[in-house]
């Protein structure tokens, strides 16, 4: 029987990495990610896991180590936040272009300036286009579960992509939650050792990382793009297999009381749970409000989003990052997904909770109130940063 244990989410993440039998772990400290590598270093120091664990001198090297290890056929892991992710951004594109499976957990944190250690999604949005499969999770259980999902998925020969799990820094990473741990035998069955298609080894020499002239570059890039798009059925298939094993089923887009709602909140990450509390409250008051949660950020689930949101009169999209000079990145994507339909909902975009500022159920209600009034008054594509003191 699966054990349900109260533990810090970062520790649950580290335990999942142990259970996933990772071969190479590169670590560099940055708040709020550090608890994950701290706990992993303990696990390895106590001999509870057979892995090469070492502390590198920068995040750039942390990801470079994973790239070298993955190319050699090892299961690799690293994690980071904020400035660390910005520093390693160069290598994120290369890892994906080389089609090397690995897992990176990002404890999402604000990008400087001003310097802030608190949570938002500006770090991960800076590498939005790097070509990794990118998940957003809502709670500690989902972090734990997605470690296994990510490796099995990324290492599938029809996929071969690196995977990012985005979890909100502090709000998730530092809280203690009940986590249902999966028995090791089940995990070993779900996630067998990585068998690479090619590896750096003298017995079968390969050249990896050749450069492309313009005559071949577009073809190489198209192949990568198509591969990422067509990983969608594998993603749902992997979630299905995981659900069959644990009873916890995941989907690219999930909904809460959304089917008949006139107004839909659209969220991503840990604030989805708070938003669902707000939705329940508004429903009790007789308002027609529902929630759409985006779990899969890349490849972007255009079809699933349409299915979940097209019927509504208005969407209130909550972003935890700003594309300075444009609007929230989630809103851009949502608008793009719906643009082709004459009968489409208005999209009102709030940037809320940047740098870890609390977004409470009453804040969601206020945002819905505001959006409904603005849209009624004709401001159908509004955009604002919520709750700024002026």
């Amino acid at each position: 029987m699966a054990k349900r244990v109260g533990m810090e989410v970062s520790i649950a993440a580290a335990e999942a990495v142990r259970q996933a039998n990772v071969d190479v772990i590169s670590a560099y400290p940055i708040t709020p990610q550090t608890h994950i590598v701290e706990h992993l270093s303990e696990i390895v120091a106590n001999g509870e896991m057979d892995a090469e664990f070492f502390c590198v001198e920068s995040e750039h090297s942390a990801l470079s180590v994973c790239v070298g290890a993955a190319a050699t056929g090892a299961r690799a892991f690293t994690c980071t936040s904020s400035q660390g992710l910005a520093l390693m951004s160069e290598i994120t594109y290369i890892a994906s272009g080389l089609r090397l499976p690995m897992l990176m957990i990002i404890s999402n944190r604000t990008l400087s300036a001003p310097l802030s250690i608190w949570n938002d999604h500006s770090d991960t949005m800076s590498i939005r286009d790097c070509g990794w499969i990118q998940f957003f999770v809502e709670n500690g259980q989902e972090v734990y579960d997605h470690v296994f999902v990510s490796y099995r998925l990324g290492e599938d020969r029809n996929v071969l992509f690196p995977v990012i799990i985005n979890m909100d820094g502090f709000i998730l990473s530092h809280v203690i939650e009940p986590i249902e741990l999966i028995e090791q035998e089940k995990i070993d069955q779900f996630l067998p050792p990585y068998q690479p298609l090619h590896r750096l080894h003298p017995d079968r020499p390969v050249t990896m990382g050749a450069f492309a002239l313009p005559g071949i570059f577009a073809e190489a890039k198209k192949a990568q793009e198509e591969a990422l798009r067509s990983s969608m059925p594998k993603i749902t298939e992997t979630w299905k297999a995981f659900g069959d094993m644990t009873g916890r089923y995941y989907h690219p887009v999930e909904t809460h009381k959304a089917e008949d709602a006139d107004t839909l909140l659209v969220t991503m990450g840990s604030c989805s749970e708070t938003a669902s509390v707000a939705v329940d409250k508004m429903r009790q008051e007789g308002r027609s409000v529902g929630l759409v949660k985006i779990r899969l950020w890349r490849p972007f689930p255009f079809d699933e989003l349409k299915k979940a949101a097209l019927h509504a009169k208005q969407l209130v999209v909550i972003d935890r990052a700003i594309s300075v000079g444009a609007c929230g990145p989630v809103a851009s994507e949502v608008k793009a997904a719906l643009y082709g339909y004459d009968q489409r909902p208005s999209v009102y975009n709030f940037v809320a909770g940047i740098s870890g500022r609390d977004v409470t159920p009453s804040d969601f209600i206020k945002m819905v109130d505001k959006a409904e009034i603005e849209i009624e008054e004709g401001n159908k594509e509004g955009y604002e940063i919520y709750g700024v003191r002026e």
Partner: protein
Amino acid sequence: MENLNVFAVRTLTQKEYFAPGHRSCQGCAEALAVRLVAKALGRNVVIAAATGCMEIVSSPFPYTSWRVPWFHVAFENTAAVASGIESALKVLMRKGRIPQKKIVTLAMAGDGGTADIGLQALSGALERGHDFVYVCTDNEAYMNTGIQRSSSTPFGASTTTSPAGKMKQGQITWKKNMPAIAAAHNIPYVATACPSYPIDLVQKVKKAADIEGPAYVHILSVCPTGWRSVPDISIKLGRLAVETGVFPLYEVEHGKYHLSIDFPKLKPMKEYIRLQGRFRHMTDEMIEEAQNRVHREYEQLKEKAKRGF
């Protein structure tokens, strides 16, 4: 020793792991250095290469000059990539997922990728003590991007970003001492080499591979394109660099210095300088200034070799 080197090179393996047909310039001594390094290590090697001349001449997709596993990721992270490869090989062998055998992890980068942008990653990998060989093929500037100065460009050299003008006479700083920086990490083996001394080079690379732990080999690689020299004197120029004391050949084994070849009397530096267009603007005063410093540093090195540390 000179003559021995000329003929004994035929005793090296005929096998080529860095295949002919690559796209390096005429007279490129860096390609020769890389070829010799590959010969020294044989087939049981995995190479992590930095962005640079040797990367672009050898890997235009879908072609490759490499008969051994070769991996290019980026410019500044070669030592980190090699760390990943080395640890992966180690753990996969330990877990029985690949057969047990000695495989050398080789990291290879130019002077820019080593002394400038890659210095941090290199320092990290040396400090962590990975069992790998790092080879810096030093052609004394960013040649691949069109001859821009690096911290390894020698005093006086005119490059496209340290041009000889009316106010400044080429590179105004002294060449960064990379081997000393590597040695300061207290790693088991550091050496300098030059393809003009092929046997010496091959022996050093072999030694670097045999020693457990990190090893660093710094190879001076004459670049006719960037040095503005005629292509058929690259070997001669490499010899002159050594014979004038500009680039002494030595080893630092477990902290102990040893000169590979000593000259009771160094040739005048002018003989080396006058064959290269990059130094054409140098006045006699400038050459003298450089000459004095070269002599001083050579004496210091000899002193270290005598003392042993």
